[in-house]
């Protein structure tokens, strides 16, 4: 099988790219959480001004294609005098997109736990913060797990767009190898298989976690991130 040999030759390069893909995914998701959570709080508990600002951010992040965002960051930041590595640019772009979707997930989760739970907690004499940490958060986190798993898989797949601004991740490594081997189909299929394994792990891992902490009656279908 010469295809097999080809794959074996390509594998070290592809795995190197895979590592970058995983790093991109990790940092982007982290930005998504770090930005997404406060945004969700602002939406739920913030005043009108804060809610307005957050709404504009969401609208932008949900309407402008990730590809365009990445190019804007890549060409725009240097204009502001910020020279950043393309890896960072990619993480910022993917992360900020994800933050908008994650905030929606967290907001939905917090709201679906509901005001009556907050009231009940307050009736026991808990302060707002205590009520949030002991009553709202434990329930909201469980509700948020399935959609967050779905979003993680989306981010993982979206990191392939970092290719377009030159980050040497899995897809770009594949391109390099194709340039020398001239066997695009075999390499692309291998790349697809690697992505498939990665998304399966992401979904599987989180669904294990989900099962462990499940509250009966909660769960959603993973789809494309809801776009608006």
């Amino acid at each position: 099988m010469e295809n097999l040999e080809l794959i074996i030759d390509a594998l070290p390069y592809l795995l190197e790219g895979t590592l970058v893909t995983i790093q991109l995914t990790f940092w982007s998701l982290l930005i998504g959480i770090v930005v997404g959570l406060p945004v969700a709080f602002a939406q739920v508990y913030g005043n009108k001004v804060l809610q307005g600002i957050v709404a504009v951010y969401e609208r932008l992040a949900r309407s402008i294609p990730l590809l365009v965002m990445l190019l804007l960051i890549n060409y725009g930041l240097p204009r502001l005098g910020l020279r950043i590595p393309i890896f960072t640019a990619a993480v910022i772009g993917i992360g900020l997109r994800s933050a908008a979707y994650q905030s929606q997930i967290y907001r939905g989760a917090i709201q679906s736990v509901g005001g009556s739970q907050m009231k009940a907690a307050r009736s026991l004499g808990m302060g707002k913060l205590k009520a949030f940490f002991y009553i709202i958060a434990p329930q909201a986190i469980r509700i948020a797990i399935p959609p967050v798993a779905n979003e993680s898989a989306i981010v993982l797949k979206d990191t392939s767009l970092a290719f377009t601004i030159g980050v040497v991740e899995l897809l770009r490594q594949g391109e390099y190898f194709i340039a020398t081997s001239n066997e695009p189909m075999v390499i692309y299929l291998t790349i697809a298989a690697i992505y498939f394994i990665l998304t399966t792990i992401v979904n599987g891992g989180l669904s294990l976690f989900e099962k462990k902490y499940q509250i009966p009656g909660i769960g959603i279908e993973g789809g494309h991130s809801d776009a608006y």
Partner: protein
Amino acid sequence: MLEIFMEYYPLFLSGLGVTVFVTLISCSLGTVLGTFLALGKIYGNKLVSAVVRTIISIIRGTPLLVQLFIIYYGLPSWGINMDPITAAIISFIINSGVYQAEYLRGSIQSISGSQLKAAQSIGMTKWQGIRHIVLPQAFRRVIPSWTNEFIYMIKYSSLAYVIGARELMTEGKLIASRNYQFFDVYLVVALIYLIVIIFFVAIFNRIEKKVTIP
């Protein structure tokens, strides 16, 4: 920025036209494909159901960009060549069809049980029941997912840029490589996407209100 748009608006607009066209075709044919996949998964025999399941999980588990590359750069290795637009549309149809299949499946299954039984009780065949009773309800129920899918596709059709299909994003790149104002040109592109998406969201909200069953 406005100057850039005024100078190149025929190019921007033709790109936008292609973007909307590609999205419309992909989502609509995606619905057709998705319907067959969903029906195959639910009502098909073990083999059909397993094949559909596999297709769905493979497409869902891999990036659209990779799917696009496989179709545009990979298929020629097997002697199948096509122009960038066709390659883009085909990969979008497959991708969208698979996601729509999942939306539809959920919706069909939530309707199927008792409604299909009622249909059969008045003498309908299973297929008649699916066609006249289950699917009309399922389609209505997935309209919100469908419009989401449409918005998603407008944005992700920009990926066709990497294979040079001349939609909005590609036109932007071509303009930028002429005047070297990359940032400003892409900002115009971003604004056009923003406006178009706000426009479609508004339209869809209206349609949804109209077709809702009381």
